[in-house]
C-alpha cells in the first residue's frame, strides 16, 4: 500500500516554520496564528486518515500488523552502511502521529488566546511549527540515525521554546540546562548507535528488530566487560532516552523547563517530546527483550520505577503548580518505563508493552489538559504559586470542571482513561515483578494525593482576595480544554490490546478486578487525604510536614540534586578543568613558545656585539680562525 503522502505530515509544519520564521516581521499576528493552526489541522487530518487506513483497512495481514517502510539514502558511509531518511508505518508510529497531532493542534488553538498580545507571537508559532516537524520526523524515523537526527532537532526546538522569554535570565539558563543535560544523555545515545552500527552493520529498525535476524540471534558473539557489546549499546541508548524522558538522575532539566510558556510545557514537556525516551525503548523493544535475556530491559524497569516514586514524593512538596505537574510528568514517564521494563513479548505476556503505549496515549491527553488548565489559571491570576490561588471555582467554571476531570483521570478514578491504562500497567507489573508492583501501587496513591492537593488548593481552599477579579479564559483556550477533557474521560475505551502490541498480534485484555480494586482504593485514599488537608484552609498539612521534618525539607529541595549538579559543573568542570586549561594554555604552552622566542632575542643580543663593523676585529677573528683550522688539520694529518 502507498504511504508516500505521509511525508507531508512533518513537512507541512516545516513549511509553516519557514514561512513564519522568514517573514516574521511582515505577517500580522492574527494571520500567523491561523497559519499555524491550519498547518497542524492539515497534518492532523492526514494523521487520522493514516490511522484509519492502517488500523482498519490495510495494516493487518493474516492477523498481524505489518510494517511499511519508504525511504531514500541520505548519507553513505560504506556500500552497506548508510543513513536513510524515510517514513516507517507501524502501530506505535501511527499511534504517536495521533497523539502528537491532537496535542499539537490543541496547543496551537490554545496559544492563539494564551499568547495574545505577546510581541513574539509570530515567532512563537514558527517555533511550534519547527517542533511539530521534528517530533513527527522522530516518530516516523526508519532507523537509529534518523531518530537521532530528529531527536536533536526536537531538543533544539525545546531549547528555543523554553528560552522563549529570552530577556529573562532564569529562562535562558533553564533552556541552556535542558539542552546540555539532554545533550549529555545523547552522547550515550550516539555511542550506542556507533556500537550497533559497527557490530550489526545496519541502523535499520526493521533489520535490527527482527527476532530471527542476525542482530538479535548473534548477540552473544561479542562481549565487553562481561556483557554483550549490544547490551552495552542498549544501555547507552537508554541513557539517551532517560535524558529526554527525564528519568532519574537526568531529570534535573524538566522542572526548570517550566520557564517556557505554559502551552509549550503542555506540548513538549508533558505530552510529546518527553515521551520520546519511552518511544525509543518501545521502538527497539525486540532488541531490549531478546538480547542477553532482557538485561538492559531490567535496568529500564528499575530506573523507571525509582524515578516514578522519587518524582511523586517531590511533587507532594512543591508549591509552584507547574513544577508539581512537571514532577508528576516525570513520575508518569517512570510508570511507562517500568511497564516496558516488565513486559514480555508474545501475546498476553506483552501486556506491559501495550499498557505502556496505552498509558502514553491517555497520559498525553490528561497531562496536556492539566497543563493547559494550569495555564488558564496562571493567565487569570498571574502567578504560578499555590499561595496566590484559592477559591477559583467560582470564577472559572470550565477550567475547574476540566481540571477536575484530568485530575480524576490521572488518579485512576474508575472508568476514566487513566484508570484503564494504569490498571494494565499494574497488572503487568504484578505478573512479573512484585517489588515493582508495590512501588506502582504506592505511586498511584501519591499521585492521587498530590494532584488533588493542587486541585483543592487552586479551586477550593482559602478565599484569596484578588486585586483583579479573575475571569474565565476566552473560547480559544476553553475549547481545547473541553476537547481534551472529553478525551481524558473516554479514550480509555479504545481497544489498545487489539491494536498496539509487541508482537503485532492483538489479544483481549480484561480488567483484573482484585488488582483494579486495590489501585482504586489506594487512589481514593489519596484523594480523601487531600480532601481532609486542603479542601478547607487549615494547618493540618503544616503539622504533617513537621512530623516528617528533615525528610520533608529534603523532598522540598528536590533531594538537593540541583546543588550536586551545580557543584560538579561549576566547581569541577568549569573552574577546575576549564579554568585550569585556560591558565595552562596561557602560561605553559604559550609560555614555552614565548620562551623560545625570547631566548632567541636574548642570545642574539649577546652575540650581536661580534658584528662590530671594526676591520681590526674581523681581521683578528679571521687570523684566529685560520690558526685554529690549521691546528685541526695538522692534528688530523699527523694521526
Amino acid at each position, binding site marked *: 500500500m502507498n504511504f508516500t503522502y505521509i511525508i507531508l505530515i512533518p513537512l507541512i509544519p516545516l513549511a509553516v516554520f519557514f514561512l513564519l520564521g522568514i517573514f516574521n516581521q511582515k505577517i500580522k499576528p492574527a494571520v500567523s496564528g491561523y497559519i499555524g493552526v491550519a498547518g497542524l489541522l492539515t497534518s492532523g487530518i492526514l494523521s487520522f486518515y493514516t490511522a484509519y487506513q492502517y488500523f482498519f483497512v490495510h495494516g493487518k495481514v493474516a492477523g498481524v500488523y505489518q510494517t511499511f517502510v519508504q525511504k531514500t539514502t541520505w*548519507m553513505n558511509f560504506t556500500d552497506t552502511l548508510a543513513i536513510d531518511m524515510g517514513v516507517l508505518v507501524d502501530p506505535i508510529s501511527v499511534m504517536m502521529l495521533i497523539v502528537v497531532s491532537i496535542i499539537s493542534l490543541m496547543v496551537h488553538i490554545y496559544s492563539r488566546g494564551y499568547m495574545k498580545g505577546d510581541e513574539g507571537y509570530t515567532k512563537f508559532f514558527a517555533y511550534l511549527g519547527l517542533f511539530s516537524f521534528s517530533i513527527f520526523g522522530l516518530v516516523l524515523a526508519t532507523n537509529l540515525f534518523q531518530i537521532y537526527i530528529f531527536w536533536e532537532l526536537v531538543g533544539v526546538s525545546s531549547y528555543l521554546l523554553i528560552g522563549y522569554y529570552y530577556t529573562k535570565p532564569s529562562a535562558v539558563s533553564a533552556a541552556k540546562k535542558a539542552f546540555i543535560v539532554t545533550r549529555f544523555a545523547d*552522547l550515550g545515545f550516539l555511542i550506542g548507535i556507533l556500537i550497533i552500527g559497527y557490530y550489526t552493520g545496519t541502523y535499520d529498525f526493521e533489520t535490527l528488530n527482527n527476532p530471527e535476524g542476525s542482530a538479535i540471534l548473534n548477540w552473544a558473539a561479542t562481549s565487553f566487560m562481561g556483557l554483550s557489546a549490544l547490551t552495552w549499546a542498549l544501555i547507552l541508548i537508554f541513557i539517551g532516552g532517560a535524558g529526554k524522558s527525564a528519568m532519574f538522575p537526568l531529570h534535573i532539566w524538566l522542572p526548570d523547563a517550566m520557564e517556557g510558556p505554559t502551552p509549550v510545557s503542555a506540548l513538549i514537556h508533558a505530552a510529546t517530546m518527553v515521551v520520546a525516551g519511552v518511544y525509543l525503548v518501545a521502538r527497539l523493544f525486540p532488541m531490549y527483550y531478546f538480547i542477553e535475556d532482557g538485561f538492559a530491559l531490567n535496568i529500564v524497569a528499575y530506573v523507571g520505577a525509582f524515578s516514578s516514586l522519587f518524582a511523586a514524593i517531590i511533587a507532594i512538596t512543591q508549591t509552584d503548580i507547574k513544577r508539581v505537574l512537571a514532577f508528576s510528568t516525570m513520575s508518569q514517564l517512570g510508570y511507562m518505563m517500568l511497564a516496558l521494563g516488565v513486559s514480555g513479548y508474545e501475546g498476553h505476556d506483552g501486556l506491559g508493552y501495550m499498557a505502556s503505549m496505552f498509558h502514553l496515549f491517555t497520559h498525553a491527553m490528561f497531562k496536556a489538559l492539566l497543563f493547559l488548565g494550569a495555564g488558564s489559571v496562571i493567565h487569570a491570576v498571574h502567578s504560578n504559586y499555590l499561595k496566590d490561588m484559592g477559591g477559583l471555582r467560582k470564577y472559572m467554571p470550565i477550567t475547574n470542571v476540566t481540571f477536575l476531570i484530568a485530575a480524576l483521570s490521572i488518579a485512576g478514578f474508575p472508568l476514566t482513561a487513566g484508570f484503564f491504562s494504569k490498571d494494565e500497567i499494574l497488572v503487568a507489573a504484578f505478573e512479573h515483578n512484585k517489588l515493582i508492583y508495590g512501588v506502582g501501587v504506592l505511586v498511584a496513591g501519591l499521585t492521587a494525593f498530590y494532584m488533588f492537593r493542587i486541585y483543592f488548593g487552586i479551586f477550593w481552599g482559602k478565599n484569596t482576595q484578588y486585586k483583579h477579579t479573575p475571569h474565565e479564559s476566552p473560547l480559544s483556550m476553553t475549547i481545547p480544554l473541553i476537547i481534551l477533557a472529553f478525551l481524558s474521560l473516554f479514550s480509555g475505551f479504545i481497544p489498545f490490546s487489539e491494536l498496539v502490541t509487541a508482537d503485532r498480534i492483538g489479544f483481549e485484555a480484561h480488567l483484573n478486578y482484585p488488582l483494579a480494586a486495590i489501585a482504586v482504593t489506594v487512589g481514593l485514599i489519596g484523594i480523601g487525604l487531600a480532601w481532609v488537608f486542603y479542601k478547607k484552609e487549615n494547618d493540618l498539612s503544616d503539622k504533617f510536614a513537621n512530623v516528617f521534618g528533615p525528610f520533608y525539607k529534603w523532598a522540598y529541595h528536590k533531594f538537593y540534586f540541583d546543588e550536586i549538579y551545580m557543584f560538579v559543573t561549576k566547581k569541577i*568542570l568549569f573552574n577546575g578543568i576549564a579554568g585550569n*586549561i*585556560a591558565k595552562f594554555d596561557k602560561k605553559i604552552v604559550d609560555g614555552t613558545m614565548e620562551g623560545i622566542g625570547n631566548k632567541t632575542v636574548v642570545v642574539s643580543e649577546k652575540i650581536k656585539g661580534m658584528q662590530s663593523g671594526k676591520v681590526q676585529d674581523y681581521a683578528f677573528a679571521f687570523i684566529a680562525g685560520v690558526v685554529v683550522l690549521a691546528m685541526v688539520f695538522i692534528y688530523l694529518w699527523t694521526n
Partner: protein
Amino acid sequence: MDILSLFVTVPVLTIIALVFTKGLKQARVVSMVGSLIQLVMAINLVFAYFKERALNNSIMVFTKDVVWFKQFNIHYAIGVDGISVALLLLTAIVVLAGVFISWKMAVLPKEFFISLLILATGVYGFFISIDLFTMFVFYEIAVIPMYLLIGIWGSGPKEYSAMKLTLMLMGASAVLLVGVLGIYFNSNADGGALTFNILEIAQVNIPFEAQKLFFPLTFVGFAVLGALFPFHTWSPDGHASAPTAVSMLHAGVLMKLGGYGVFRIAMFLLPEGAMHWSWFFIILAAIGVVYGAFGAIKQTDLKYINAYASVSHLGLVLFALLTLNKIAWNGAILQSLSHGLLTAMFFALIGMVYGRTHTRDIYKLGGLMKILPFIGAIYVITGMAYLGLPGFSGFVAEMNIFVGAFENPNMFNRILTILVVSSIVVTAVYILRLVGKIMMGPLSNDEFKDLPKATWFEKTGILLLLIPIVAMGVAPLWLSDMIFESLEPFIQGVL
C-alpha cells in the same frame, strides 16, 4: 587558458586592477567583481568536474604541466580531484563573503583588498598544485600577507600578534621544507629521476626509514597551520588582533591548508610513515579536540572563544585523518569545509557585534537579540550549526568522523574516539554560554539601544555563507560522493 589556471590568473588580474583604483568605493567594487567571477568559476568547476569525472578515471583531472625550473625538475603542474574542487569552492565563497564584510574598510582600503587577494591567490594556487615545489611557493604566498594584514589593519596588540603568528608559521615552514626536500631526494628510490610531482612520487616506494624520518617533519610543518596541539597558541592571539575579513579568511580557508597538506602530501606520499606515527599524533589531535573545547569555556573575549573552538574543530580534522579510515577521511574533508564556512560566519558576526558595540568582552554584552534581531537570530543559528545540530554541515562531518573512527576495533582507538565524541557536549556548553550571555538576557548597556541594524552588504555576506552550510547539512550526498571517490588512491597507501 585552462579552467584551473584561471583560478590564479583572475585574482592576479584583480590585484592589478586594484592598483589603479582610487578610494574605498572603487576598491571594494573591483574586489567584489573579481571575487564574484571567482565564485562563478568555482561553481562552474564543480559541474565541469562532475562531467569530466564521468569520462576520466585518473586521480587528478584537468591536469596541465609546464616546466618551470628544468635543473631541479620543478614544474608548474596543476590538477584537481574532488577534494580540491570542494576546497576551491569554499575559498571562493569565503573570499567573496569577506569582501562584503569589509565593505566599510576605512583605513587604506586599496592596500587592504590587495593584501586580501594576494592571500587568496596563494590559497587558490595551493589547492590546484600537484607539484610539491609550486605548492610550497603558493603556501608561502598565502601565509606572508597575514603579517601585513594583522600588523596594519588589526586591533589590540597587533604587532605582537602578527609577529607571533608569522614566526610560528615560518618556523613550521622551515620544518616543512626539510620534509619536502626529504621527499624530493627520495623520489628516485625506484631508479627514476628526482621529481616534485606528487602523482609521480606516489608511485615510488620511498624506503621505510626515510618515511619514518620525514613524515613527522611534513606532518608537523602543515599541522601547525591546522592548529595542532601544542602548537596552536599563535591562533588565539592572531585571530583576536586580526580584522574581521582576515580572521574569516584565515580561520575559514588558510587553516584548511594545514589539513589538506597533511593529507595530500604527508599521508599520500609517506603512507608507511603515517602508519608508523599515527598512534602518536592521534593522541595530540584527540587532546586538541577536548582541550580546545574546554579552553573555550572560560574565555571572555568573543574571538578567543572562537579561536579555541577552532582548535577543537580542526583537531577533529587531524584526528579523523590519522584514523586512516576512509569514512573518517570523508568526514575530515567535510569538516574542513563545514568549519571553514561556520568559523567565517562566526568571525563575520563577531565583527558586526564589535563594530557596533566596540567591545568583545562577553560580560559587557547582553540582550542584543532585541536590538539586532537579524544578527541575533543568525548568531543562534550559527551556534547551533557549530555544535553539530542536524540540518547543518557540522553534523554531517562529525558523524562521518565518528562512524569512521569507530570502525577501528583497537581498544586504544576506541577510547580516544569516545573521548573525542564527548567533545560534542563541551561544545554545547561553550556555545550556549556564549549565545546566552551576549544575545539573550536583559540588555547590558543602555547605550546599545540605538545600535544600527544589519546592512544589506552584511546580510549578503552572511547569506553567502549560510546557504552552503544548510545545503551541506540537508543534502550531503552529492558532496560526500564527490569527495568519497577521490579518497580511493589515498586508502591504497595505508592498506
